[in-house]
């Protein structure tokens, strides 16, 4: 069963660019692996790090966050705030013993359907290489509860 590990990935997309890039990938019929499930946010700035912990704790093997290119945010500059948070969040996750490669931030504009698809494809392969994360599944390693994680997190503004 484990010979071909199929990771589950949660993706957080911005309503204005990357969600539309996903739409465009669809319209253009560009194929990518089915391992990713997207959640639409209005902006990458909406991403509360708790969402990421929740996803990992509930069984996701990786999380990908996508936003508008720097300088192209629909809300002027909120993606920079997402970027700031992302780095701190990554450090926290590392502190919890998580491989840094399990969460990733990419930029994709509404015109970049092909880029979106290739980024997803690449990320699936990266997570496949890392193997399953046993946080949320009935695996061996005990998973920290969301509440426990939340306590450790300082949310940067």
């Amino acid at each position, binding site marked *: 069963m484990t010979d071909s590990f*199929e990771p*589950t990935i*949660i993706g957080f997309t911005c309503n*204005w*660019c990357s*969600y*539309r890039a*996903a*739409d465009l*990938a*669809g*319209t253009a*019929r*560009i*194929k*990518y*692996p*089915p391992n990713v*499930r*997207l*959640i*639409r*946010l*209005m*902006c990458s*700035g*909406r*991403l*509360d*790090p*708790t*969402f990421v912990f*929740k*996803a990992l704790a*509930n*069984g*996701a093997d990786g999380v990908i966050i996508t936003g508008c290119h720097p*300088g*192209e945010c*629909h*809300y*002027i*500059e*909120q993606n920079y*705030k*997402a970027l700031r*948070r992302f780095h701190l969040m990554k450090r926290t996750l590392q502190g919890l013993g998580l491989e840094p490669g399990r969460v990733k931030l990419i930029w994709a*504009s*509404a*015109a*970049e359907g092909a880029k979106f*698809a290739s980024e997803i494809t690449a990320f699936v392969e990266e997570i496949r290489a890392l193997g399953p994360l046993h946080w*949320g*599944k009935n695996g061996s390693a005990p998973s920290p509860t969301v509440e426990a994680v939340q306590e450790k997190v300082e*949310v*940067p*503004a």
Partner: protein
Amino acid sequence: MTENNQEKIGVYVCHCGTNIAGVVNVQEVAEWAASKLKHRGVVIAREYKFMCSSLGQELIEKDIKELGLNRVVVAACSPHLHEKTFRTACANAGLNPFLCEMVSIREQVSWVHTDKVAATAKAKAMIAGGVERVRYNSPLEPLMVPINPATLVVGGGIAGIQSALEIADAGHHVYMVEREPSIGGHMAQFDKTFPTLDCAACILTPKMVSVGSHPNITLLTWSEVEKVEGYVGNFTVTVRKKARKINEELCTGCGICQEKCPKKVIDNVYEAGLGYRKAIYTPFPQAVPNRPVMDVENCTYYEKGTCKACEKFCPTNAIDFDQQDEILNFEVGNIVLATGYDLFDARRVTNYGYGRLPNVFTSLEVERLTNAAGPTTGNIVLRDGKTVPKAVGIIHCVGSRDRNFNNYCSVICCMQSLKFAHLVHERTGATVYNFYIDMRTAFKDYDEFYQRVLEEGTLFVRGKVAEVSDVPRTEREKGKLIIQVEDTLVGKQRRIPVDMVILSTGLEPRKDAKEVAKLFGISCSVNGWFIEKHPKLDPIATMTEGIYIAGCAQGPKDIPNSVAQGAAASARVLGKIEQKQIALEPIRASVIEEKCSGCRICNGLCPFNAITFHEDRMVTEINPALCQGCGTCVAACPAGAITGTGFSNDQIMAQIEGLLMLNVDQELAVA
């Protein structure tokens, strides 16, 4: 919400013909949702061929009424396409539209995956996510805001002119902002227009005059938009009106200043570098407004401190050397962007020798050469200003359809080249060659024009020209420009000596298109053109409500299409104005005062200044009219005191749980 456990959720899975059903087993998905999500509140799950059809919508409406559904999940296409459709259906049946949630199983599943089993499983997970999320949706009321009936039109080319006139004629105010000293755009530079060969000035000038004299149009030339704030219906625009150094009230447009100005400058804009203007100038006699501008960079007074010839001779004392840029602010409800194109820089194609070989010309240069008001009064001559060419080669696709430069077709070049072939033939009697890859003469009366040019004896060579050389190999080639090309219909390389080469240069997005897009909150395609809302069904609107695009700013197009798009944009604007008010998505953040600790972390986060802090109560407040709903403050609040409607923490956490439900609970995964 969910505490009372009285959710009655309907799940609707769309086949979209075979678009979804061809990959996702929709029947299995619907049956699964009905049985396995029953304990989550799903009372009915259906699949249907086209949910967006009226019959599909009726299904939902009927269930709401008959089964008392209080939540709806539609698994179909992207919410950007049909969210509105299904929300309206819910509203029709008396359900608050925001209790309807869409799951995109077409764009995100069936169109991008091939493995049917995996795609079906993913569709189930996504529906579970939607169901979990919709449980936490709350009924919302759209924010109604009034629409300011004034409109901003950016760019005074033919598309912008058309748009402005239509709106102004309907009785609404238009601000037209143009960067150059006069409106008219590229069309004002042309001599004849294809395929009818009517004179560009003859058909354009009356429209320009109408704009200049229209009581409903405020014309701001030599001006640029610097800032745009607000949202559809309520934009605040800041415009920099550059100093003309002319008092426009006093100036009568008599032209004496231009006559007396001693400084001659090569005119790189209107004359395409082929002619001269003065340091104080109106670009062309029919300019609107008929008021000159001073080119401070080339003016002798600004260079040397003396001259002021213009001031000495001005009969109305209109010259004002101290005039400064003016900053104007005004409010509009809608914006039309018709900013046009730039010409491809032909010097980049080194092998065609433009800039090195004098008798290689660009299409815009030839427009000026053929124009009776141009530098040669309409005589087609070589760079020496007098020799009439005996043989002329016209090269298509320069900088277009070429991955080394621009990969797209510039649309107008084939017809433009045919027009030049006709004009050169008619005016000089020269032998004319056209070098093309493919002849593209689609649209009304275009191919007929091709036939006419064929009849006139123009020689057509099918082949992309490899190089233009001035190095002769034979006697015949001495003193000529040699066009080296494979005649692909003969299968042989040919070297054709000519006197003049015309490069049918392609169209490019404006150099600052990206910055302009950013300024107005829209985006550019990979090639740099403004992106329309939908390439087929909504080529006028953009992703940002209240901002429309027209003309070449959206992509290369000819005059008839630019005019059509300009008119279409004004129809859209007038439609919005007629609505008088507009419903805004109620996606807003708000502060629960009891939870706010007054830490002020959120205070610096809002780029729209929607967050204010009340020192007296030590709490933060968010102004719903200014809030744009990005949610950055929601994510930042350490106390969880800020909620974001439509994208609340509860909704997203539930959606995450739903999406991963199948991973956790193996029971659920069984079909």
